[in-house]
């Protein structure tokens, strides 16, 4: 791993001059590196990192972190196994990096809404999560704003209405879809510009269910904040809770018992299986093949029930805690899981055999919704979506946490980037997770499941691979309470990929493309 950190340090040396660097780089608690930049260093640093194929995986703002300025912007870069965080202290304005790192566009708009920071030269200055009905100059993440009920605008001036990209031309017309959809799904608006049935352009608008999670967590004790982390996105409960606990444990130097890590890993993989099974079923529903879909829906439901048996919660909530687990899972119950896993694998294979031998299904999946591999880095697309487009990204392999160093998952990778690749990748990952769980159950040691947890002040960044991809979590604890909790789920970045994936496809194929990417609305809108 030391070798890989060098990539970051080497890059930093190159743009700062070798002499000044080593002492300026500050190692974080979780093997990430921080570098506080001076004003004039920011732009050369960013363009240097862009040239060296660093990926901007997150950008968030913290108020009151440094004495030098009101706000500190944390630019989190990743390259292979290295994480480099550039800290840029700003007061009210800074320059935008969105034209260098396209993934920064949403990040910057998010910081602008939350903290009122202006990004000079940004190509998109529309509001992001604060829709038109919120008052002007309202920035909820500022410390000066106290969490309280808010009076929103009753009427919206037509001038202030959200401006969608205008697409004009002969025969181009707009199809607005949502935010209220048929079926039980979350709200999101899709603005299609189509020529006949062919999608010419798609613009998405999210953030219809802002819950103020980041504000809510401020001032909470780390222990209470786990429940908030679990609520970020329902079917990523374990991943987000693990990411949060991991950050807190690293800050405080708590090492958790081995058995707890085994159980956590089993839960993480179970969560992945549930999510992927739901995706397989959903994709088949969307091409109207209920015979295949119902098999996977049934398996998913049984998987949820198994989770309930294991942990007392269908979404495995309320069990992960700082320092390990709230309660142990007895050996007998784990043996039941083993039997279930073996049965699940068999039935999953049967289902896949039926689906993959149905030509009409393959015909609908193949070549539909292609995400080109060239988009992965600029937009920071992660998870199965990236792996189906030839991406080599998996947090479990790139930044192993817990016992993933010992139990290395297979690196799944396909090149085509269409719905069929995503279906196949998810099916393979289910099989891998089943194998992994079986192996973990065989090797699970006895012992404690919770170690003494004395939470200390500090900050740390953690990465966890959820079913949807790379989930990032930043925690800053001050005086024993959460001062800043920032989550960036995989969906936040992956959403933008759908605008590219649907281009040139036909409107009736949109639902299956959308489902194949399985994006979380709640995980995007905190």
């Amino acid at each position: 791993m030391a070798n890989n950190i060098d990539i970051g340090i080497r890059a930093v040396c190159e743009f700062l001059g070798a002499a000044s660097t080593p002492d300026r780089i500050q190692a974080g608690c979780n093997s990430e590196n921080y570098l506080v930049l001076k004003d004039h260093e920011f732009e050369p640093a960013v363009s240097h990192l862009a040239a060296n194929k660093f990926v901007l995986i997150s950008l968030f703002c913290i108020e009151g972190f440094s004495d030098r300025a009101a706000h500190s912007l944390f630019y989190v870069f990743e390259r292979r196994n290295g994480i480099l965080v550039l800290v840029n202290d700003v007061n009210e304005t800074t320059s935008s990096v969105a034209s260098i790192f396209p993934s920064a566009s949403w990040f910057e708009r998010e910081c602008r809404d939350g903290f009122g920071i202006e990004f000079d030269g940004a190509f998109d200055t529309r509001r992001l999560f604060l829709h038109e009905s919120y008052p002007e100059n309202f920035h909820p993440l500022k410390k000066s704003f106290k969490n309280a009920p808010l009076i929103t605008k009753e009427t919206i001036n037509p001038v202030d209405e959200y401006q969608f990209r205008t697409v004009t031309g002969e025969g181009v017309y707009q199809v607005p879809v949502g935010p209220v959809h048929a079926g039980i799904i979350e709200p999101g608006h899709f603005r299609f510009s189509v020529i006949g049935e062919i999608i010419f352009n798609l613009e998405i608008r999210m953030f219809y269910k802002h819950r103020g999670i980041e504000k809510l967590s401020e001032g909470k004790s780390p222990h209470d904040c786990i429940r908030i982390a679990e609520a970020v996105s329902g079917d990523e409960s374990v991943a987000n809770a693990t990411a949060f606990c991991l950050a807190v444990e690293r800050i405080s130097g708590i090492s958790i018992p081995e058995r707890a890590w085994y159980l956590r890993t089993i839960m993480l993989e179970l969560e992945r299986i549930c999510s992927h099974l739901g995706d397989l079923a959903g994709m088949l529903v969307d091409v109207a093949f209920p015979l295949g879909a119902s098999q996977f829906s049934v398996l998913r439901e049984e998987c949820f029930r198994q989770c309930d048996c294991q942990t007392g919660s269908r979404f495995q909530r309320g069990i992960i805690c700082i320092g390990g687990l709230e309660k142990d899972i007895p050996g007998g119950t784990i043996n039941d899981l083993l039997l279930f896993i073996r049965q699940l694998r068999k039935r999953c294979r049967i289902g896949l055999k039926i689906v993959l031998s149905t030509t009409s299904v393959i015909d609908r999946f193949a070549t539909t919704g292609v995400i080109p591999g060239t988009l992965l880095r600029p937009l920071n697309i992660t998870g199965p979506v990236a792996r189906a487009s030839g991406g080599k990204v998996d947090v479990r392999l790139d930044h192993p946490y817990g016992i993933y160093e010992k139990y290395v998952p297979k690196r799944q990778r396909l090149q085509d980037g269409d719905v069929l690749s995503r279906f196949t990748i998810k099916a393979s990952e289910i099989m891998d997770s089943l194998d992994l769980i079986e192996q973990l159950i065989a090797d699970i040691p006895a012992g404690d499941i919770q170690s003494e947890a004395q939470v200390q002040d500090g900050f740390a960044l953690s990465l966890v691979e959820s079913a949807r991809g790379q989930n990032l979590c930043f925690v800053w604890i001050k005086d024993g309470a959460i001062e800043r909790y920032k989550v960036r789920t995989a969906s936040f970045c992956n959403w933008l990929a759908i605008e590219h994936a649907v281009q040139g496809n036909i409107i009736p194929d949109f639902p299956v493309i959308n489902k194949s990417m399985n994006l979380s609305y709640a995980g995007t809108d905190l």
Partner: protein
Amino acid sequence: MNVDFILYIAINTLVVLAIAPLFVSMIKKVKAWTQGRSGPSVFQTYASLRKLLTKEVIYSPSSSRIMRITPLITIASILVAALFVPLIFVPEPVGGIGNIILFLYLLALARFFMALAGLDAGSSFGGMGSSREMSISAIIEPTTIIVFAALAFVFKTLNIFDMVSRMAPGLPAAPTLILISISLFIILIVETSRIPIDNPETHLELTMIHEGMILEQSGRNLALMELAAAVKLTVLMGLLINLIVPLGLATSLTLIGILIAVILFVIKGSILAGIIAIFESSMAKKRFFQLPSLFAMAFFFSTLIIIIEVFS
């Protein structure tokens, strides 16, 4: 018009209205079984229609008179078309009733108004549904004409009444019947918007064709539209059944004869409903632009029948 024919009108219309919801439910039931579910009761469609009939009708403020008259025109033209296909009893044909070309265009009339109503409310989904329906019907129409032309060649008549009562000389051979049934089955699937053309059970507005057009309908009007769709399904099923297996069809008006005919029709219809359900379960919906390949199959088989009939 004789008494027999007036009785025929009453009996045929009553039977089709009574049986149509049952066949719709049966397809759903068998589809549920293939998925390992128990599915809704076979009487569920009756209950849903009754519920819709008692609900209020809501019109979009941007809709015109088209929206208001469409449900009536649709059910009316479908019910008239239902008269063209004797389900249980074949009287002497009167006037143009039973003419296969007229039958075809009665279905087209209903579809035309449905498409207009889809556009009328100005919602994007209705417009998409209408545009798709019109594209499909433009492609399927030549195929339908060829299929019906093949029927006319085989049975040597243009009248459905004469076809089912086998009045014309020279009964068709079994291989011809098989080819006809394949063509008619495809027409049935297309006309009633089922998988692989359209998915009648979908909630995804973006993929809808038939459901998209009636998305803005509500209450009583929706009930009429749903009933019209069910009647259309039953009539086309009846056409297929009575052309291929006219067994049990009453030719004279006796109570016993009618009862036996009704029972036999329900049995034959249930079997066909099961076949439709299994056919639907065995495949996914086709990509929109690949639909013509399915129509081409019906076109091919019908052309084959015509060639056989002409040269044999």
